[in-house]
């Protein structure tokens, strides 16, 4: 069987969980899939997830799981994984997973394959594709030392909307015994170091802007296009270096790595440092006046032209009733 560990915060599901379920369905090859929802009070997340075509949804509630601690989550997952003895345990490769999955794997002495972008084959013999060297190379990995093998899947690598829905899987509560004294961390209240921190990894559509925008006065044009598209605004490095947009919106090797459904690159030449941060996007649209710009090598749709003509035209089209 395959276990999928869902992620929630304050009763709200992290949508990357759907991507992990999609990966599990691709991997299963007939194996049953159980989804586990850990937390202190998970609301009706289990009911939400039960619409997927899975065998069951397990609610693993325990008061000590609030607030989140790596010790608490590692212990909770371990008490569920070990008796179930699944072939694979899947996680979305979120910040939270990155925090506790290595601990869990080390405690269980089981293999951990992180940031998986593809699954080859199905069932116990499947191999996994994961990036190496900042995405320059991809490695095929076959877990050894399992079962179970712990696998985290890269955000955006599997399509949340590809999850097979199967009506209503049964949900049930499972008993999670955790020794509260074994939790060594005492988290303070969460805070954001930067105001209005944005997690671009969650965005389905992104409009990214580069040097071609020329000056700060033109940034509102980008914001307007993003608004019309229901997209987040992002940028390449020079824009953030100039302070025209905050650093947290920078895409690339020194910023965030994203893989939205739609990525519109406005006036971005496509230096390799930028490409590694966005080339996993499902559909890439590039608008650039230089036909030789490397961004066109990764773009699905390219428009060679002046963004100051093209962006307003797109906005006008989108704003038509």
């Amino acid at each position, binding site marked *: 069987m395959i276990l999928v560990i869902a992620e929630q915060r304050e009763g709200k599901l992290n949508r990357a969980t759907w991507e992990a379920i999609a990966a599990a369905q691709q991997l299963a090859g007939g194996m049953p899939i159980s989804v586990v929802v850990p937390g202190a009070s998970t609301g009706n997340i289990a009911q939400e997830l039960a619409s997927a075509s899975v065998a069951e949804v397990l609610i693993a509630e325990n008061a000590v799981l609030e607030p989140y601690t790596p010790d608490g989550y590692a212990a909770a997952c371990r008490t569920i994984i070990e008796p179930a003895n699944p072939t694979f345990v899947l996680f979305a490769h979120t910040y939270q997973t990155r925090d506790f999955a290595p601990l869990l794997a080390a405690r269980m002495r089981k293999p951990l394959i992180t940031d998986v972008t593809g699954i080859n084959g199905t069932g116990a013999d499947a191999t996994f594709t994961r990036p190496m*060297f*900042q995405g320059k190379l991809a490695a095929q990995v076959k877990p050894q030392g399992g079962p179970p093998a712990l696998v985290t899947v890269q955000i955006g690598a599997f399509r949340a909307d590809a999850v097979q829905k199967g009506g209503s899987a049964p949900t049930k509560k499972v008993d999670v015994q955790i020794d509260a004294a074994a939790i060594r961390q005492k988290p303070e209240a969460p805070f954001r170091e930067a105001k209005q921190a944005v997690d671009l990894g969650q965005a389905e559509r992104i409009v990214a802007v580069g040097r071609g925008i020329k*000056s700060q006065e033109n940034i509102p044009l980008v914001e307007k296009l993003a608004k019309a598209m229901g997209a987040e605004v992002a940028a390449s490095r020079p824009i953030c*270096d100039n302070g025209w947009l905050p650093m947290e919106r920078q895409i690339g*090797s*020194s910023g965030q790595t994203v893989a939205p459904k739609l990525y519109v690159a406005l006036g971005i030449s496509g*230096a*390799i*440092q930028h490409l590694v941060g966005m080339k996993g996007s499902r559909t890439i649209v590039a608008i650039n006046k230089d036909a030789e710009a490397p961004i066109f090598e990764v773009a699905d749709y390219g428009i060679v032209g002046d963004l100051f003509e093209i962006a307003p035209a797109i906005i006008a089209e989108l704003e038509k009733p």
Partner: protein
Amino acid sequence: MPDGREPVPAELTTSTDRETLEVDVLIVGGGPAGLAAALRLSQLQHEKGGEPLSIAVLEKAREAGAHMLSGAVLDPSALRDLIPDFKEKGAPLAAEVRDEDVLFLTQSSTFAFPIIPPPLKNHGNYVISLNQFVRWLTSQVEAAGVDFFTGFAGQDILMDGATVRGVRTGDRGIDKHGAQKPTFEPGVDIVAKVTIFCDGVRGNLTKELLRRLELGDKDHPPQFAIGLKELWELPPDRLTAGTVIHTLGYPLKHEEFGGAFIYALPEGQVSLGFVIGLDYQDPLFDPHMAFNRFKQHPYVSKLLEGGQMIRYGAKALPEGGWNTVPRVYMDGGLIAGDAGNFLNSMRLKGIHLAMRTGMLAAETAFDAVRAGDTSRAALKAYKDRIDRSAVRDELYPVRNVHQAFGYGLLPGMAFAGLTVATHGWFPEDLHGHPGHERMKMLAWYYGSRNIDVAAPSNATTIDRKLTFDKVTNVHFSGTSHDEDQPAHLLVHTEVCSSICGPEYGHPCIRFCPANVYEISHDADGTPRLQINASNCVHCKTCDIMDPYQVITWVPPEDGGGPQYNGM
């Protein structure tokens, strides 16, 4: 000042929460010199017994060898003396030198030298990856029980008058505006009886020592070159491992000093590099473009056809030779390796000299600490050891050769031949000039000709297969820095927005091989320097070649920099 930190003299900063670590010998820099020094100290400890000395090595890179870049062909003489059973201990000597060629390139042709000039004979030497070699050397040092601190750079020298007391490491957790982050940790004062400075070519601490203690000889200023290197994977059987090729000529002009190297490693890997003297005259010259042009030469492009560039790096090298070695001993301090300009530019080799001087510094430091006298007079024994060693035997006869190349390629080669024939006899030593002073102003170099300062004078096509733009190359250097820290390049930017444009056309944007410097223009047209410090590959070229000498390289925090795996 918005563009960087003013260096704060160590004695003026407060030290409320600062930790102090006391050791007998502190070695700054975990390259061949520093590691050889550390290993030699622990060997002496073993041989002579007695109260053990405490030894610490600081290395600015996050892991051993990460910032190491060289061709490299290793002369194993010093290694053999330091670790006689180096082969049994698994020294990663990739390939013994087999075939050698020296070629002269013209724009479209190749002429082989009929004989290999004696200094370029490499029989008995090894083609190595310096990164792998240094990682191995580090494992030997750690096995000997020496404390090796990676990710810690020396930021300031602790001095008491003219006496070196140790080194202060950099603060961590400072944001880009200079404010303390929640992760702030002040640097540590490491106090030592003897500090051995092995901080490499144009080391930031050695530079400061030279200035404060006036250790250099004004008639013989140090001379530097920049080396650019790519590691390529070629189809099998293109070159036999151990093949060593050097080239002269194209694409450099008569007045420019330099050449290329092609060293074949096992498994189809080839180290390909280009070295250019940082004393060129044309302010619009771009060393990185020269490297691209070299690769476009028919001989080279044919060699690389079907291959793939997998790594990139750049680093300056000290080429001035024996007469540019400063006074390498002082109260409480010694200088070894590239930091002391111990490199033989005629043989294109410095690793063995770095190791040898590191070993001699270790022997001197050991005796001094044991005798309880680490004064300048006691540490002068280091200079005496060097004078009796193979270092002088090798460097003294060729002491004038690099300076002779200052008169052009042909006079330089003629002089080099004469030197070999006479074993270095010459009535009077040739003086040198700081390389940056040889760069001409635009008006002087180009006169009234119409020039485009936006492009390098040696610009060529970039196809991202054979030739690369700097930004793409930087990606292949594996360089990363924490973005939220002050720029580690301190620049007096008022020069950039006033006189530099008209006088030199902002040469920093060309001599930097990593696209650290860019000029943008404010709304009123005033040029403004943008420093992309996180691209910096720590080559030190800007610190050396800037014509106004207004750029100072200081170590970034937390081990940032290139990742020269396999280079």
